[in-house]
């Protein structure tokens, strides 16, 4: 019995142990999406080229990934050697010294990385994360429905015009809703979209003294317009919809218009996924009083936590995964329509990519027009288009998102929702001693 117990203990310790990475072993934390999964597959080539490096993948859901990497980095857990982080985290964590500065050789051609991406992933003139794929937001609409209604849509249409088009193509009897927009609460869900909409209405999250501005007339106009638009011409249950839910509706041909991440374009124009793949056109995001901040900017990027002992290998891997050569490798393996976009100028200049991706021009235009340092009509002390790059924003964004979702569901009035949102934001900012 004693022997059995001892051998079981030994077996237990040997299975699934070894949190500390061995020399030449990299543990990479990433999210589960098409581009990342493809990287995981193609990374065998990296391992073949670098026989002394073995890659271990930890794929996590987006929210869990944030929680895990935050816990790990703040406690110095050392679980990961390469982390997938977003444009929100990169400047904050880089500034706190939680990430290693990235250094690239001339072959990498850092100047080829789109300036918006480079800037958004840097702080103090140092690059802390390399973009693996990037995105902005834009309007994706059913050109057949719009044409049949005798309407047209240009770049940056007014929100009033969008409401008119939605009214003209809204036909719930046939299962087509005028417009689909995010409503699910979350700083990266409904608030990502609503912030860009509010920006275009002249709103801002904080004034120059860091006082929340959610009770301003601009926010009220924007949210009132949004709730009214979605109540009249949106699909039922919009307060539960985010990217994936709307993608499912859109691919089924149930949305006339959709304003969301440019990455959606590659899904909805793919005939294998979408029933309306050939009926889609693109335009730059709608505006009310300004084009500033009307479309967001985001990147999933690879970074090296300060606590890793494998920083040289991690840098080598990041240089490979975000290089021009990697993009060419994906193109060679899966075709140019499948390459990770939103990162490099050379991708958009490539004629093969232009031919394969009908959304290429619209996507590039959206990314280039987004400026995280100048995203509101009035001046602000923060950086970021659809978020304010301060550590407190996550909590504030979630609290405000819940109120906006409640207003969309009709549980409370827009005025009440904004009043509560202002109170929540004010409490967080006071707690963090901004004023």
């Amino acid at each position, binding site marked *: 019995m004693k022997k059995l117990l001892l051998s079981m203990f030994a077996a237990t310790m040997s299975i*699934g142990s*070894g949190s500390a990475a061995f020399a030449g072993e990299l543990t990479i934390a990433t999210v589960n*999406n098409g581009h990342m*999964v493809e990287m995981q597959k193609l990374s065998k080539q990296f391992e073949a080229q670098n026989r002394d490096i073995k890659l271990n993948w930890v794929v996590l859901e987006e929210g869990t990934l944030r929680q895990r990497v935050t816990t790990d980095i703040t*406690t110095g857990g050392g679980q990961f050697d390469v982390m997938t982080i977003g444009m929100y985290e990169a400047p904050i964590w880089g500034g706190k010294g939680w990430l290693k500065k990235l250094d690239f050789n001339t072959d990498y051609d850092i100047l080829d990385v789109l300036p918006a991406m480079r800037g958004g992933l840097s702080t103090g003139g140092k690059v802390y994360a390399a973009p693996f794929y990037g995105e902005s937001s834009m309007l994706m609409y059913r050109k057949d429905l719009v044409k049949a209604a005798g309407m047209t849509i240009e770049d940056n249409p007014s929100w009033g015009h969008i409401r008119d088009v939605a009214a003209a193509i809204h036909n719930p009897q046939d299962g087509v809703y005028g417009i689909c927009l995010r409503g699910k609460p979350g700083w990266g869900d409904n608030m990502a979209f609503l912030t860009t909409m509010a920006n275009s209405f002249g709103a801002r999250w904080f004034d120059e003294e860091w006082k929340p501005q959610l009770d301003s007339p601009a926010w009220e106009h924007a949210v009132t317009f949004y709730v009214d638009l979605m109540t009249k011409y949106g699909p039922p249950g919009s307060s539960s919809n985010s990217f994936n839910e709307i993608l499912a509706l859109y691919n*089924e041909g149930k949305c006339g218009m959709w304003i969301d991440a440019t990455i959606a374009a590659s899904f909805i124009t793919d005939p294998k996924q979408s029933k309306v793949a050939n009926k889609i056109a693109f335009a730059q995001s709608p505006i009310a009083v300004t084009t500033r901040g009307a479309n967001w900017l985001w990147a999933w990027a690879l970074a090296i936590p300060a606590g890793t002992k494998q920083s040289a290998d991690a840098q080598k891997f990041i240089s490979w995964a975000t290089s021009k050569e990697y993009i060419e490798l994906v193109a060679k393996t899966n075709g140019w329509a499948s390459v990770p976009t939103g990162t490099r100028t050379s991708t958009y200049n490539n004629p093969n990519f232009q031919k394969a991706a009908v959304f290429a021009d619209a996507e590039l235009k959206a990314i280039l027009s987004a400026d995280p340092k100048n995203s509101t009509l009035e001046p602000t002390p923060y950086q970021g288009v659809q978020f304010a790059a301060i550590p407190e924003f996550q909590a504030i964004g979630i609290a405000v998102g819940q109120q906006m979702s409640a207003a969309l569901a009709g549980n409370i009035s827009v005025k009440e929702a904004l009043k509560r949102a202002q109170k929540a934001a004010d409490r967080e900012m006071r707690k963090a001693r901004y004023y």
Partner: protein
Amino acid sequence: MMNLTLSQRKKYKTISLGLLSWVVALVFFFPILWMFMTSFKTELQAIAVPPLWTWEPTFENFAIVQERSDYFKFAMNSIVTSFGATLLALLIAVPAAYSMAFFPSKHTKDILLWMLSTKMLPAVGVLMPIYLLTKSAGLLDNVFSLIIIFTMINLPIIMWMLFSYFREIPKEILEASRMDGATTLGELRHVVMPLSWGGIASTGLLSIVLCWNEAFWSINLTSANAGTLTALIASYSSPEGLFWAKLSAASTLACAPIVVFGWFCQKQLVQGLTFGAVK
């Protein structure tokens, strides 16, 4: 209804109860059935509105899961943590429950209630201290840390169940064994355990199921090596892109072993849930 005979009323009652049981069972089983069906659909079929009830099944999702993830590594970690934690918990709980059932003090009831109250604490409330302790012990991403944590979180319920089983054993039998010269350990090994073997087995089975389904700690304390099947399922959720069919395939593969296991042990499980602490 008023003119029905007693036997007819009994018959109607039996039929009604039978129908109600079927409806309740179907309601409980429906999500699992839907997950199973979705795992054989394409991503487009999985999100079809209205939902598809007939389609040409595909095994593509299972192939993708197998290609992308090392299923057997995750499954082995689930087996080791579930059985290891259950064994450890039983080793602690059996003597403790024996002591509380047969030699109660005035604080026994309070201790049992206190143990149960630890289940009321949300796991996330102790995430940071546990994470730091695990890190200090060098046990991050190690199945041994999961075994210890699973043991701790299931110990209260195992204690309660065993306590209830042991209390059903007549004290006279123990007194008789003592008269025959049995020591405490001998009494536990040769009298208490054989008499409550069914209860111990069903408690163990329930513990295995609970450990198998545990997700919070598996996801938060593991990375590349010690992840269990719940961590595998979580990795198939995607923020951007369709994933329901692949997620369903991963879930089906994760559920399959424990469903088969539960099927074989259903008699003991039902006995455990209807005769123990929760009767």
